[in-house]
């Protein structure tokens, strides 16, 4: 990008002062990254072996094995949505720019994990229920939550200066949907399995399930580390543009 376009390319620069914290010497913000990457890659590489060795479910058979990734991604999605909501609240009420960076990163990861959940679910449903999609409480509320976080990202992308506060409010409402999505299967009549499935899992299925959940949680931490670092560098870039204008 050339310098004459600098003002056009940095919409945030008009609404804030350069952060003093970002000018501190960098103390290896990605120092944990290789270790996290190694752990997450190892866990994801071993997960298929655990899933293959897990027993088949009596009525659904092979297709039930989608459960391990589907629910793992869903739990990580809930954690990401909660992270976005908490960080958004801290940004709104505490005025901490760092919290905004965390919220933005978590919203993007929520959308990515939500995509995995919303694609793997219908693939399972096609075999188990005979249809790709059912407009029941769990599926619809998950789709609505995913769309709320999509709107967060669209707001950040096209909202212009000051969109941080508005998107933080959207993130807060998006995370408030998590309990509704989780309990929707118990509150309303639905074809989706209830929340009793996980606590009553057979020990031979519990091991691979917990492994996949942990793998997805590690992936979430890994992606958060990387994505927050990207936001930090973008903030530093904005500061450089401000220095250039001065």
């Amino acid at each position, binding site marked *: 990008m050339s310098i004459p376009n*600098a003002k056009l390319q940095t919409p945030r620069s008009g609404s804030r002062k350069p952060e003093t914290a970002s000018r501190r010497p960098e103390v290896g913000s990605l120092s944990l990254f290789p270790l996290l990457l190694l752990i997450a890659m190892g866990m994801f590489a071993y997960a298929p072996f655990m899933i293959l060795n897990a027993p088949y479910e009596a009525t659904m058979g092979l297709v039930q*094995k*989608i459960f391990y990734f589907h629910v793992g991604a869903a739990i990580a999605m809930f954690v990401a949505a909660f992270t976005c909501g908490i960080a958004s609240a801290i940004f709104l009420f505490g005025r901490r720019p760092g919290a905004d960076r965390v919220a933005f990163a978590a919203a993007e990861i929520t959308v990515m994990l939500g995509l995995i959940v919303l694609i793997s679910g219908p693939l399972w449903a096609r075999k188990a229920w005979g249809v790709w999609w059912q407009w029941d409480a769990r599926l619809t509320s998950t789709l609505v939550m995913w769309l709320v976080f999509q709107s967060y990202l669209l707001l950040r992308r096209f909202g212009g200066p000051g969109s941080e506060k508005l998107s933080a409010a959207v993130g807060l409402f998006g995370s408030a949907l998590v309990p509704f999505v989780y309990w929707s299967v118990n509150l309303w009549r639905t074809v989706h399995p209830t929340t009793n499935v996980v606590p009553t899992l057979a020990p031979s299925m519990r091991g691979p399930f917990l492994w996949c959940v942990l793998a997805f949680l590690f*992936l979430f931490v890994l992606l958060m580390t990387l994505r927050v670092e990207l936001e930090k*560098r973008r903030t530093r870039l904005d500061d450089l543009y401000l220095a250039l204008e001065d």
Partner: protein
Amino acid sequence: MKCFRFVRAFLVAAMMLGAPALSLAQQQPPKAPEGFVPVDQVPGQEELPAKPLVAAAYGVAWLAVLIYVFSIWKRLNAVEREMADIARRIEAGGRR
């Protein structure tokens, strides 16, 4: 009496000739109705295979993660390049 014997013989002959014809008629398969034929069970070979669905689900998960990591890596590189470019220009402006 002679008449009664004749009737009895006629009936026996009719039964002997008619029974095979009747059983043949019973053995004939019913005519297939025209159009769709409903069945209670899906034929075994027609069932939806689970393998492609499971493979697609796991493939999508891996692909989504890989594409996302690649997009972050690309954005990080772009920001780094931009930062280096601006730092160079600030430095050049300071020298003038």
